[in-house]
């Protein structure tokens, strides 16, 4: 059974919501990423998303763009990230999801990517520039090896598209809370409830909400509409601002998010 399914099954049994932190792998270096994953797991992260840096992050706001740049400057590659996952897997069982634009995966080779990701212990992959129409080559290979392709839906997604997307998604459905790029936002918009209820009509998969989640209290509000809350930029910003104690500070905020969701 995929670790993601396990995770949601356990949470559901206990009436809990998942908190899913995102960090860019290799920011500021892969050693720190390994430490971050361990510390975030200790702080209560239910699933962890690792961003694969790509030189053209067109779905990302300034915070993650800068993280990507820091990571690429250190020579981070998909192959090295998979090595880091192998190291993480020696001690951690937290479900791991890679978030990568399509081109790094394509150049790695679809077959190799799926094979090596599964061997390293990756559970799922999110590809923000791979819409459902273009996903079958990756989806079918991933499905065969038990790697989950997690699809995104947006407030603009039509009913016809929702149905199709649900068919091609595994693990959970990732609802983009706003029409926009990643980044911290103050207000939560009221489209969220509408979107998640539309999603629930076409799938029994767990529903996660991400993009713009900036604080534990806001996450608790959002969690009323879903099974998982995803936060990235607010954590990445800590790494940008604190070179010495980023790991413990990020872990601290993850703990706050988790307790807000449990409250």
């Amino acid at each position, binding site marked *: 059974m995929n670790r993601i399914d396990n995770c949601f099954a356990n949470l559901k049994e206990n009436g809990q919501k998942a908190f899913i932190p995102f960090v860019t792998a290799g920011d500021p270096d892969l050693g720190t990423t390994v430490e971050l994953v361990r510390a975030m797991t200790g702080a209560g992260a239910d699933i962890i998303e690792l961003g694969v840096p790509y030189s053209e992050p067109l779905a990302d706001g300034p915070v993650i763009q800068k993280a990507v740049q820091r990571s690429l400057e250190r020579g981070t590659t998909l192959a090295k990230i998979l090595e880091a996952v192998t190291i993480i897997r020696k001690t951690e069982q937290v479900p791991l999801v890679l978030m990568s634009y399509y081109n790094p995966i*394509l*150049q790695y080779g679809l077959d190799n990517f799926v094979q090596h990701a599964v061997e390293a212990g990756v559970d799922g992959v999110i590809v923000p*520039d791979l*819409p459902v129409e273009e996903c079958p080559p990756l989806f079918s290979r991933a499905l065969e090896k038990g790697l989950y392709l997690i699809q995104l839906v947006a407030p603009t*997604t039509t009913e016809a598209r929702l149905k199709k997307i649900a068919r091609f998604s595994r693990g959970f459905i990732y609802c983009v809370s706003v*029409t926009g790029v990643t980044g911290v936002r103050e207000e939560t918009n009221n489209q969220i409830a509408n979107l998640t209820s539309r999603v629930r009509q076409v799938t029994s998969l767990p529903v996660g909400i991400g993009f713009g989640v900036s604080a534990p209290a806001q996450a608790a509000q959002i969690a009323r509409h879903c099974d998982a809350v995803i936060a990235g930029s607010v954590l990445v910003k800590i790494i940008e601002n604190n070179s010495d104690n980023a790991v413990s500070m990020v872990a601290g905020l993850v703990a706050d998010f988790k307790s807000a969701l449990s409250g």
Partner: protein
Amino acid sequence: MMSIPDERGYFGDYGGRFVPETLMPALEELSESYRLAKKDKEFNHRFKYYLHQYVGRPSPLYFACGLTRHCGGAQIYLKREDLNHTGAHKINNTIGQLLLAGRMGKTRVIAETGAGQHGVATATAAALFGFQCSVYMGEEDVHRQALNVFRMRLLGAEVITVKSGSRTLKDAMNEAIRDWVTNVENTYYCIGSVAGPHPYPEMVRDFQAVIGIEAREQILEHTGRLPDYVIACVGGGSNAMGIFYPFLQDKEVKLIGVEAAGHGLESGRHCATLSRGKPGVLQGSYSYVLQDEHGQVLPVHSISAGLDYPGVGPEHSYLKDINRVVYTSAEDGEAVKAFQLLCRTDGIIPALESAHALAEAVKLAPQLPPESIIIVNLSGRGDKDVNTMAKMVGAKV
């Protein structure tokens, strides 16, 4: 005509739609609106009207007697897109797209620009048709093409300086896509070349095809026969697709696309995507890309801001693979020489982009007999490049 692209936007293996889900419904809507507009008499009538009365079409096909004499071989004809309103072929496309945006009920348009020609053309059509307009431009290009920045502002557009990445055309496009993702409800994204997700490569080609349709008629009228060669520069590839497309079925007409070789293909500082790239996904479509083994886009260079782009339209990738078009390249220095040459031989100051196509013609013409005919797409005028040229020769303006 050929039935490419297919309904998913593929030219052979190339094309498609690789964008965030947020934009997919907008692309579906755009495809449908364009499909209906293409068949609509009123739309076609308005497009033709503005091309004629506003842009000044048809543009002349001029026999470049000075350049022909200088080269001493084939007869060289120039398709004078430089004489269009705003000074380049870009306006053909922006008129078409903004007429469509109006039909779709959009109120705001955005664009990316490199040389500033597409930005100016978008700002112009936005002023004409009454849209709010924002243009994204890389910081490096804002400096290189300062004159065009001011032109856009005069036309009422907001010019947004992009400071991310390499601060050139591709980064401007990333930022425009981010704007579009955020404001997709009321905003129309006017892409300036045959790049991006389906239906842009097809739609922009169709709007630019007027270049080739006219050139084909004009050369038949002037000489009674088809040309031996048609040559165009390739950045994203819109002026080239525009002039090539109506000649694709004429197998005897050789088509040459000229990419920018910058400091030389071996220098690593060029943007010869089809010559040196490999297939990958960049900014919405699958096509040749200048990238490293990990799929990261490589830094590129050209003296010409309009060619300074690591990708290329998917239809060109297809035409390369099926060997219908040959893609060559010209270095910065060769383009500069061809630029200076045309100023002297025919009294025409070409855009640095177009000078790459001229450089190829200058190499080719002397090897051909005098009855051969070459058409060069003179995609734009060089007013915007006068500062760059002055710097090259150490003159003060």
